[in-house]
């Protein structure tokens, strides 16, 4: 094949585009992992899911539209795989915990440790382990939205596209999910 051969040029262009896609996807792996780690229950599950998602992404790279949000595209693959593999069914209680109000956690902490002063920081009442454990106990539908929006910094619109749900559902799950998280946190922190 010569450089002037249209097929050769097309193949070379495609190879270049593919390598660029792969490099861009790998450069985002840390950010994707950070979200994946909290969508599932363990590091091992997150690592398996990452490998499945990246294998699929590399196979179907042509379906990614350059110029759109690659991180959201990768996470859409990852969340779909997570649903397909039924991991979600294995985790979390079947019954959704009763939600408390938005002030539930702070009220419980103050009941048990006195008023929180203006100078006091949240980490004086809650630990990192409290957070990680409480988040893992939020039912998956709610946790997915919290992880994408509050940890992954995705907009409501991006989260809706990643999870393939209406934006109103993102908002309602976020609202309820945060309340459930606070109830879980109160249970973790106040014995």
């Amino acid at each position, binding site marked *: 094949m010569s450089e002037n051969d249209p097929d050769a040029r097309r193949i070379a262009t495609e190879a270049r585009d593919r390598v660029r896609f792969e490099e861009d996807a*790998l450069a985002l792996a840390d950010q994707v992992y*950070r979200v994946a780690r909290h969508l599932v229950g363990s590091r091992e599950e997150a690592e398996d899911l990452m490998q499945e998602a990246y294998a699929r992404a590399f196979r179907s790279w042509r379906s990614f539209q350059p110029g759109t949000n690659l991180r959201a595209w990768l996470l859409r693959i990852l969340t779909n795989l997570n649903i397909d593999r039924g991991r979600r069914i294995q985790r979390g209680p079947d019954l959704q915990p009763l939600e408390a109000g938005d002030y539930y956690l702070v009220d419980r902490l103050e009941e048990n440790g006195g008023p929180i002063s203006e100078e006091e920081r949240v980490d004086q009442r809650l630990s990192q382990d409290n957070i990680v454990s409480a988040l893992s106990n939020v039912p998956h539908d709610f946790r997915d939205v919290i992880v994408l929006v509050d940890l992954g910094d995705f907009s409501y619109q991006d989260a809706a596209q990643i999870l393939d749900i209406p934006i109103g559902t993102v908002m309602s799950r976020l609202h309820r999910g945060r309340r459930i998280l606070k109830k879980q946190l109160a249970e973790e922190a106040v014995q």
Partner: protein
Amino acid sequence: MIADCDKCEELLQPYLDRELTEGERQEAETHLAHCSYCARRYRFEAELRMFVRQATADEPMPPELKEKLANLRIAL
């Protein structure tokens, strides 16, 4: 006052998400300026969000996983 606090609680999350209308934002801020109970709770909620983010950011991707992902690339 209790009714105002209930309304303030309702506005809490959209306030932190910057999703309130201008009128609602003013309503929340007027209440917060005069109610130490709600002001303390708003401060707590804002800090809690940051703490959740920090607490979950501490677990970096294992280096060997990055290598495994790179090896998944299909040979040219």
